């Protein structure tokens, strides 16, 4: 059982409200979609949920494995440590780290990143290195031991970096924007596999609705910072409000 629940969550920039949710909850289904027009507040919501953006008001509760976490007092690294992680809409990366080092960074436990550890010979475990090798053999990069150069490679690396953290719940903000079609399919298959194998939950923000309808079991529809409708894909598709406000029918 997993539940990421928000109550009366709001965010304003300079008294201008961009998000105002009375209540919403994610994680009851393995893959959920979050759709809505440009500027609806989808990215803002994901930023709030991972505590990268401070909310104006409200509560965020993450229930996982019978533990009950109040996210409001936590900082973003603590949220990641309890298993709630997000991929980024805008391309982000570490320009001085190679692809492999970037993945290693994600896997390295804090005990190996202390001042004391500078003098110890401790390496990442073979299992972790093997896992990195496995990802790099299945997903093609031009130079797996070099740097991610194209926008597509950076976007893919951003997603792999999050997957290798083995999150309990992964929020994906427009993961396929900038990815070639075949890589998109590969990523979607991989996350579908992991939701089953690792009991991971996914929330996807996407404008590519075909992808939403074919992969999501449940869809949330956000407009102007408010959740106007939610339900099964076929219900959302058939909904008049969604059709008017977003599908342009």
């Amino acid at each position, binding site marked *: 059982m997993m539940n990421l629940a928000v109550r009366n969550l709001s965010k304003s920039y300079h008294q201008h409200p961009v998000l105002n949710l009375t209540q919403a909850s994610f994680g009851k289904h393995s893959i959920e979609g979050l759709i809505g027009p440009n500027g609806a507040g989808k990215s803002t919501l994901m930023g709030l949920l991972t505590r990268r953006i401070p909310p104006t008001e409200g509560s965020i509760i993450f229930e996982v494995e019978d533990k009950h976490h109040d996210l409001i007092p936590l900082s973003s690294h603590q949220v990641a440590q309890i298993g709630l992680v997000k991929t980024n809409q805008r391309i982000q990366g*570490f320009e001085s780290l190679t692809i492999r080092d970037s993945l290693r960074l994600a896997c390295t436990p804090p005990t190996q990143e202390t001042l004391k550890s500078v003098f110890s010979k401790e390496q990442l475990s073979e299992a972790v290195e093997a896992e990195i090798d496995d990802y790099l053999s299945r997903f093609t990069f031009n130079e797996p031991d070099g740097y991610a150069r194209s926008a597509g490679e950076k976007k893919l690396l951003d997603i792999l970096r999050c997957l290798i953290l083995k999150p309990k719940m992964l929020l994906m903000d427009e993961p396929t924007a900038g990815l070639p079609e075949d890589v998109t399919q590969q990523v979607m298959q991989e996350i579908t596999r992991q939701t089953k194998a690792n009991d991971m939950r996914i929330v996807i923000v996407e404008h590519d609705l075909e992808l939403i309808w074919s992969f999501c079991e449940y869809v949330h529809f956000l407009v102007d910072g408010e959740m106007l409708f939610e339900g099964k894909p076929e219900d959302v598709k058939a909904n008049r409000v969604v059709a008017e406000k977003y599908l342009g029918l």
Partner: protein
Amino acid sequence: MAYLIFSITLMLVYIGLAQLLHIQFGMLGIPNFGIVGFWGLGMYSVGVLNVQWDFSFIPALILTLLLVALVANGLGRLILKLEGQAMLCATLAFSAIVALLVITEKWLTEGVVGLGTIKYPFDAGAMTEPLYFLILLLIVVGIQLFINKLHVSRLGTLIFSIRDNEELAASLGKDTVKIKLELFTLTCALMGLLGALSAPLNQFLTPNMLVPSVTFAVWIALILGGKEHSMGAVLGVFITFGLFDLLIESYLPVAPEYAVMVPNFKLFLYGAVLVAVLMYRPRGVLGHSAAGARQELP
């Protein structure tokens, strides 16, 4: 001879400061413009403890390390979350405050009159100065070994990731605030240690030693040598301090009638080298080689 040993010992102090700035700015991205503040705090703290309160050198040194670490930690908590430019101003202001307090708190520091004499911690006759040089050499070599290890360690990777994109590193579960504070405290405390060790070297301390030009000299050396390269600090100080201050200013064989021109000639050459390096090697002399600086130009 004595002057040569004094000069190269002082050069080691500058190398140490530049190495520590390499960790702070080159690796971690913290623009510390208050170097002279931490160094001066260390120097004056040992001076006051030693001269005014009769502490012997080693206890004074230990107390000083603690004091500078505490001050750096407090300052770090206030400023490390700020933007780069704000951090720059805050550290610069910190060093100005230290310099000002040294002038105004006469009961402690003797103000502009000056504080002295601070003796070497041991007396080995004619060998005192060479031995002291060796101690500083050991410290500088030690810092360099630490830097080399740090560059290839897991912590090093984390440090580079913080410099590149702190928010992203935090979103992967890294406690970036803690790491930055720890490293800032450690490196500033070591700057204080170098200051403490500079006290017997200078023997007599005056407030005009705490001018910002100390900070700038360290910055110029690091930028010139290559801020991201593990050896950039050492090379940079060799060029600025070693070549210009030591070799040209003190040991260039010139006829006495031209001697007056040497300082101007030195400044001219110094400026020319600086401009040339920044034009042709904007990342410093060692900026493009791959060994220490991981970054490869696209």
